[in-house]
């Protein structure tokens, strides 16, 4: 720390009075570029992987088992001789698909509950939120684990279990947004205009929920992907032989000494995906930061 520090950081500048022109588009931050690239690669790989892979991800080939990465198998093969790269690509498709469905489920139900609760207010709101918060009292994947015990551990079980597990967070965010929007003057203006409550909800409140929902959905996508990987790792997710990054990591454990690549690549994929989502999420949050908006 320098002894000479007269120019200390301070509060915001007073903004200009007139903002007649539209805000100039700012260059995307490095966060967004790196994050966007990583996510882009993920999505492209997932799309390709759903339709085509270099080798059949399920094809067994005992001759080639536990082969190190080579020109023939770029990322090596596993204990059954299956090509790792193909399995990663197929796994990408599976994980992305599951995550999208789960997030959609959580967002749809969470929004309905949140909107309803925020709209009704009073005791209805309190009761709904009491149940909602109680569900949130099951931390992390606990609720999903419990639900899996009931619905059964497979691809669709995961979507249902994780979807239900994440619905309360969405409901909470939507309800919070609805409540704070209700305090804004343009809602009062809508009522004074003569609009019915229902019309006000649909025309004014719902569209303004989209921004926070988008931010939430993006970060939730990351959490769900991670959760699905973790559950698959534990053996409670997508069952083998269908590949997903999580169960590939689980399968690599017995062979980790001899075939180190089996443990590196699936984990690397998950990490890079999460990194991409985090960076992108940061960039989006910075952009939407209300401090950056023009103020008087």
């Amino acid at each position, binding site marked *: 720390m320098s002894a000479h520090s*007269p120019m200390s950081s301070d509060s915001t500048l007073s903004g200009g*009075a007139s903002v007649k022109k539209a805000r100039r588009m700012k260059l995307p931050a490095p966060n967004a570029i790196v994050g966007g690239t990583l996510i882009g690669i993920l999505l492209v790989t997932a799309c390709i992987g759903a339709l085509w892979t270099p080798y059949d991800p399920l094809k067994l080939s005992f001759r080639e088992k536990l082969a190190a990465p080579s020109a023939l198998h770029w990322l090596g093969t596993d204990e059954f001789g299956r090509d790792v790269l193909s399995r990663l690509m197929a796994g990408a498709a599976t994980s992305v698909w599951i995550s999208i469905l789960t997030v959609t489920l959580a967002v749809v139900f969470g929004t309905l509950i949140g909107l309803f609760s925020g709209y009704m207010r009073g005791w209805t709101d309190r009761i709904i939120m009491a149940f909602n918060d109680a569900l949130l009292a099951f931390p992390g994947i606990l609720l999903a684990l419990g639900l899996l015990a009931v619905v059964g551990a497979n691809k669709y079980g995961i979507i249902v279990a994780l979807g239900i597990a994440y619905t309360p967070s969405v409901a909470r965010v939507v309800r919070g947004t609805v409540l704070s929007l209700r305090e804004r003057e343009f809602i009062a203006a809508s009522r004074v205009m003569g609009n019915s409550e229902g019309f006000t909800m649909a025309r004014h409140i719902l569209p303004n929920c989209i921004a926070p929902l988008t931010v939430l959905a993006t970060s939730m996508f990351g959490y769900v992907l991670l959760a699905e990987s973790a559950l698959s790792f534990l053996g409670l997710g997508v069952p083998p032989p269908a590949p997903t990054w999580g169960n590939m990591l689980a399968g690599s454990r017995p062979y980790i000494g001899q075939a180190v690549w089996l443990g590196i690549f699936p984990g690397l994929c998950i990490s890079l995906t999460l990194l991409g989502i985090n960076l992108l999420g940061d960039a989006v949050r910075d952009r939407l930061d209300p401090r950056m908006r023009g103020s008087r």
Partner: protein
Amino acid sequence: MNTSPLLDVSGLTLKIGASGRTVVNDVSFQVFPGEIVGIVGESGSGKTLAARAVMGFIPPAVRLDGGTIRFDGQDVMAMSGKDLRTMRGSKVGMVFQEPMTSLNPSMLIGRQLDEGLALHRKLDAPARRALILDMLRSVGLRDPEGALTAYPHQFSGGMRQRIMLASVMLLKPALLLADEPTTALDAVVQRDVMELMVELTQANDTAVLLISHDLGMVARYCSRIVVMCQGDVVEQGLSEDILARPQHPYTRKLLSAMPHRLPVRLLPEAKTPIVSVSDLVVEYPGRQGFFRKGEAKRALHGISIDVRPGEVVAVVGGSGSGKTTLGQSIAGLVKPAGGEIRFNGKPIQKSDAAYWDYRLNCQMVFQDPYSSLDPRMTIRQLVAEPLRLVPDMSPAERKARVAEVLSEVGLGDGFAERYPHELSGGQRQRIAIARAIVRRPSFVIADEPVSALDVTVRAQVLELFDELQKKHGFSCLFISHDLGVVEQVADRVIVMQDGRIVEEGPRDDIFDNPKHPYTQKLLAAVPGLESTPEGGVRLFWRRAENDAAITG
């Protein structure tokens, strides 16, 4: 008076590092020991940046591009960190605008006050405590000992500003920087805090640099004024000179933006008042605990008012007076617990036949231009929305009406497809007005429509409002905490305090002959204007009969 200035700012130029935009341009002014100097400007004038630079506070995004700041002969910009820290607090003190955020919420008041004192003075703890208690007493706290072990959130805004003053004046600095110290406070409290500040600084021979957008307040307390606009000093001199003989066009604009009284209007006689409120009672439910319900709080205690067609009635009062609640009740946003509201002589319940007439004809303009427009709608959609409910209006007719109304508020075609965030505060308020009058209502409630705007913009919007009111003849309930604004627009004035009407009458009567002590107190904070031959004004201040300061 000393010949050498205490503070000498010369050619100060600050630029934003990245874009190179100049935010303070070649600014020079001086403050001599013991005098009170004011810097007046609107947002974007650079006054706050210039003032903060005096203490060496320059935001990281901004850089010094030229000029010097000398305090007591020393160059502030060249000072070492240690010297700067010695200067801060003990030689120069600063009071901020927002009382809510200027005190550390998690530190006891006693400790916060003690900090500066312990740093700069060699006194032991009991001596410091005695000084602090003394100072708290002199700023008007009734229980100084209790305050020492209290947290800031336990005090009101006005009290917090007093505590800030105490904290700064404890060290008897040679210069006090007051950056909009009373802007966030109630009108009556504002005056009390300002008087206190002046009293304290004069008693301690402290010079004051007062920064404000309020020319009236600055003129009242400062012997010299510096006028800034967009980073430049456009004019400076003695207060009387600036006011009486303004040289620069911007200064003239500021002066003309101060509310002037217009001649009395004659209104046509009408049998039925357009809005008639009788014995209105509004209550807010008490705090809902788990096991007990708090007492209901009465916001309005049986209010009765009548508004004639074409009349502008101003409702004035401080926060908590109930004026906003009154407006909201008439607009239908709040359900009354008792009493009756009639529109055009007919009751206005949803089930009544006359409901739609009331609903279509009673409109409202809100205070906050940043919150009253849906950010996702274009201007055209915003202004057209009310027309949805007008029967028998074809899309073409609607489009024409929207265009008509937009041009009436002075915003041409280009604005229709824009979004609210692209517009300034003043423009947004025009849109809010356009939206309110698009159905040609007969009654408009304006809830502090100009309070959130800059002074010169305020004048423009008031003028617009006036024009529209004369052209279309709607009645208006104009709610404001600012009597100055009200003087310009009102035909009749109603003064409220604590949910009751304390005085009402024609505008001239209220302003020239206030009877109730609260009305007098409100008026004491507002300057009266007299035009001078050279195109300037002379301000005069009304004295309240009972001038004892209230703790608020």
